Each structure stands twice: as structure tokens, then as C-alpha cells.
């Protein structure tokens, strides 16, 4: 009963603080909205590019060719090494007869990829392994490892296109990450500043409260509430943006993006996860901001 009454007083004061400094509160909320919306775009971008690269990976495995005339025992040994390597996803051995049959089939089917493939092929055909790396970023390292195995003649380069895509997505990812971190720091700073101004404007009141026996915790709690209110308001818009925006994008693009190869991740689960994360980030950022302001006040007094 008692703590409930107290909490109402805190909530009332916190709300009053927000209203009394409506413009500063508004700028904090706005920063949060911008930051979190970018975060949402970023998170959805990342989960989709993860899907893209997964799509690419299954198509750009390494093509490993053995020397002509290696023994079965040597092939067995090489396969054993490949199978236990931590960067290897799936792999498949095809001897030269199977490889010949596959090429013949691709020609018969009029497969697009055959042009690229034929340009790189050597006669006579070699025994090959098709090796998928666990992710696109491990291809180079894996390629080098396999090339150093005794019976290996050569390893085909991973597709340049896939490398370019993964390099671009990585670059965009990094830039966005830096940008968001900067924005988050800015949001913390702005909220901290808003609350410091509120504390400052209520300095007289606070010093009287201190004088009549209010504890530091008691008199600063409304400011933490103020931060929380800013955080909650700041989270609502980006969450709505996430829930509605992604669905609209998914529906208008029909679930594919840029190239038909890449499927967008289904909205339902992703959107709720991202929305939930937005809420957590918003509230943490505003809590950190208000706690910094409160700590500064408490340590100064």
C-alpha cells in the first residue's frame, strides 16, 4: 500500500518533469526515434543479408580437383582431412566419370552456368570434391587449406560475384554499425542533458527536500521515471515503424529483393523480434541517460 502510494508520487513528478521541459524531452524522444528506426533497418538488413549470403553459399562452393592418377588411398586421406575441418559445411566427392556425366547433363539441360564452367575446365577430367564452407567469409581460408593437401591439383576461385556481394554487405553492415553506435551515444547524451536541466531547474526544491530529510534515492527517482517515459515514448514510433514498414516492404516487393535469387525473410517472427529489441534498447538507453544525470547530481551534492 505504502510503496504503491509512493510510486504514484514518483510517477506524477516524473511526468511533470517531462511536461515542464517538453522541448528538450521532445528532442530526446526524436533522437531515440531516429536511432531506433535506423537500428530496425539495420537489424532487418543484417538478418536479410545473412539469408542472402546463405543463398549464395549454397551456389558457390569450392571446386577441388585432384592430381591425375592419385590413388584411392590418397583420396580417402584427403577426404578424411576435409571432413573434420571446422570451416567445412557440406562436401561431396565425385570421380572423373561422375563428373563427366554431370557436365554432359548440364549441356543437355541448357544450364546457364555451363558457359562459365566450361571456360575453366581441363581435359582430361579430374576427380573432384565439391566443398561448401560454413560461411562465405571462410572461403579463402578453406581454399588455402585444401590447396596445401598433398594430392590436390587446384582449387577453383570462389565466385567473384559472391565475394563482391559479401564484401559490400559487410561494408554496409560496418558503416551502419558505427553510425548506430554514434547515434546511441548521442541519444544517451541528449537524455542525460534533458534530465540534468530538469534537475537543475528544480534545484531549490531538491535542496529543500534534502534539508527536510529526503534521501538521495527518493528525490532522484522521479528523474529516472522521467527517463523511462522518454524511453517508452521514443520506442513506440520505431516499433510501429518496424511492425508496419517491413510488412509493407515485404508485400510490395513480393518477398524478393533486387535479384530474384534472394528471398526476404518472412516478416512475422523477425518483426516481433526486432520490435522487442527496439523496446529493450530504447529503455536501456534512456535509463542509462537518466542514471548518469542522477549520479552526477548525487555525487556533486
Amino acid at each position, binding site marked *: 500500500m*505504502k510503496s504503491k*502510494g*509512493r510510486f504514484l508520487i514518483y510517477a506524477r513528478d516524473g511526468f511533470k518533469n517531462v511536461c515542464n521541459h517538453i522541448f528538450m524531452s521532445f528532442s530526446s524522444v526524436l533522437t531515440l526515434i531516429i536511432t531506433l528506426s535506423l537500428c530496425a533497418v539495420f537489424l532487418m538488413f543484417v538478418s536479410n543479408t545473412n539469408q542472402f549470403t546463405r543463398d549464395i553459399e549454397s551456389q558457390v562452393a569450392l571446386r577441388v580437383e585432384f592430381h591425375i592418377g592419385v590413388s584411392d588411398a590418397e583420396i580417402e586421406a584427403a577426404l578424411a582431412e576435409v571432413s573434420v575441418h571446422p570451416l567445412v559445411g557440406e562436401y561431396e566427392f565425385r570421380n572423373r566419370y561422375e563428373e563427366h556425366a554431370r557436365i554432359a547433363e548440364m549441356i543437355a539441360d541448357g544450364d546457364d552456368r555451363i558457359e562459365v564452367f566450361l571456360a575453366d575446365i581441363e581435359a582430361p577430367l579430374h576427380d573432384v570434391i565439391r566443398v561448401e564452407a560454413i560461411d562465405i567469409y571462410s572461403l579463402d581460408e578453406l581454399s588455402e587449406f585444401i590447396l596445401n593437401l598433398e594430392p590436390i591439383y587446384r582449387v577453383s576461385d570462389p565466385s567473384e560475384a559472391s565475394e563482391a556481394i559479401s564484401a559490400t554487405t559487410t561494408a554496409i553492415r560496418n558503416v551502419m554499425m558505427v553510425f548506430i553506435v554514434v547515434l546511441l551515444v548521442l541519444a544517451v547524451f541528449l537524455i542525460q542533458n534533458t534530465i540534468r536541466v530538469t534537475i537543475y531547474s528544480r534545484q531549490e526544491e531538491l535542496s529543500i527536500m534534502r*534539508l*527536510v*530529510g529526503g534521501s*538521495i534515492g*527518493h*528525490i532522484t527517482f522521479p528523474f529516472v521515471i522521467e527517463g523511462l517515459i522518454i524511453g517508452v515514448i521514443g520506442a513506440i514510433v520505431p516499433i510501429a515503424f518496424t511492425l508496419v514498414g517491413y510488412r509493407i516492404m515485404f508485400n510490395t516487393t513480393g518477398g524478393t529483393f533486387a535479384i530474384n535469387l534472394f528471398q526476404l525473410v518472412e516478416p512475422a517472427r523477425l518483426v516481433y523480434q526486432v520490435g522487442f529489441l527496439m523496446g529493450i534498447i530504447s529503455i536501456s538507453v534512456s535509463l542509462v541517460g537518466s542514471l548518469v544525470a542522477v549520479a552526477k547530481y*548525487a555525487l556533486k551534492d
Partner: protein
Amino acid sequence: MIEFTNVSKRYPNGVTGIHNLNLNINKGEFVFVIGPSGAGKSSFLKMISLQEKVSAGELKIANNDVTSISKFKSHLHRRKIGVVFQDFKLLPKLTVYQNVAFALEAVGLPAKEVRKKAMKVIYLVGLGNKVLSYPNQLSGGEQQRVSIARAIANNPDLIIADEPTGNLDPENSFQILSILKKLNEEGKTIIMATHNYDLIFDNGCRVIRIDKGAVVQDEVMGYHEV
């Protein structure tokens, strides 16, 4: 109740407020603190009300060493001390009732008790008919009575008043003093700094004279001697 042992107060700018003070004040005393401006009266009182930290020596209040008390604990001591200022320090946007209730809320009392205690002390200082007035609608004397009501709302054992009549005319000054006197008769310890020598009881009370940060006189005296 209050024990100063070799207490000094130096401000960060190097000015000495109080120098090497040794003094005891007992429970139930009414003590006047006098002395010229800048003598250190406020410095002395502010150390007791924990508004200023002691720079050297030892200060005990109600058998607790508060010399270097943490600001996260000081509120527990402040609740046992009522403070009254020359400039009242009322919040202008709050009514008489709210100004008093605010002090009770600050210590976390439940709403029902806040109401009961606030009304009790407001009637005690004779402002029952001004409960809903704002400070700027009150005379100086009435404002000071509100601040006394606020100071005693938490029922402290000790009341510190720093020139409480400094802004008041003689009539209001005597009224404030009589309230303090009454509180003293109820057993509260009162320490009051003043420049208004007319107020000092002529029936013998303790007067501490401070000059240049040191006690230069400390005795029970009558009006004619001051």
C-alpha cells in the same frame, strides 16, 4: 545532545568559517547564537544541520558521529532536525498545505499520514485559515510560520533557526520567538542565530557569542548584559 570537539570549518576558497570549536549543547536547551556579520554563526549552524561538512575535528549529534557522514545516510539525521531560515525557503508554486506536505512526502510517509501531520502543524502555528493560500499571499510572519510548520512536521528533537526573524517586524518577530519558546517548553532543543538582541530572553538563557570563527562568550545571561 550536540558535541563539538576541535571542530573547524574551512571553505574550499580558503576562508575559515569556524576555527577549533569546543562546545556542548544539551537536550532541551534554548541557545542563542550572536556575533557580527561574517563571524561564523551560519557556518556553525550549517554543520549541525549537515548542510556543510566539518573540515577538521569531531561532531556528534545525539551520540552519533556525523563528522564525515555519507550523503547517502545524512537524510536519516536530517529527519531529526528541523531547519528554519531567514528567507523562509518556501516553494512559491505550492500552497501552505502543499509546502508542509511536501516535506512529509520527501521522507516517504503514506498519504494519509501526510495529511494528518501537515494539518496538525499548520494549526499549531495558527495558520488553519490559510491552508490553501500561496506564499505570496501571506505576510512575512505568516510565511515564517509556514516554514516553522514544515520544520516541525516530522517532529524533530532539534530545531535550527538561522536569523528566523531577520526579515520580520518586531511584532512578528516576537510571535515567531514565542512559537519557538513553546516548542522548547515541549522539550525540543532550539538553536537560533540572531542579530536581534531585543529577542533574547531577559529571564536568563544561554547565549553563545561567536567572533572570527571562535566562541568568545558562552554564558547564561539576562537582557541587560547583552
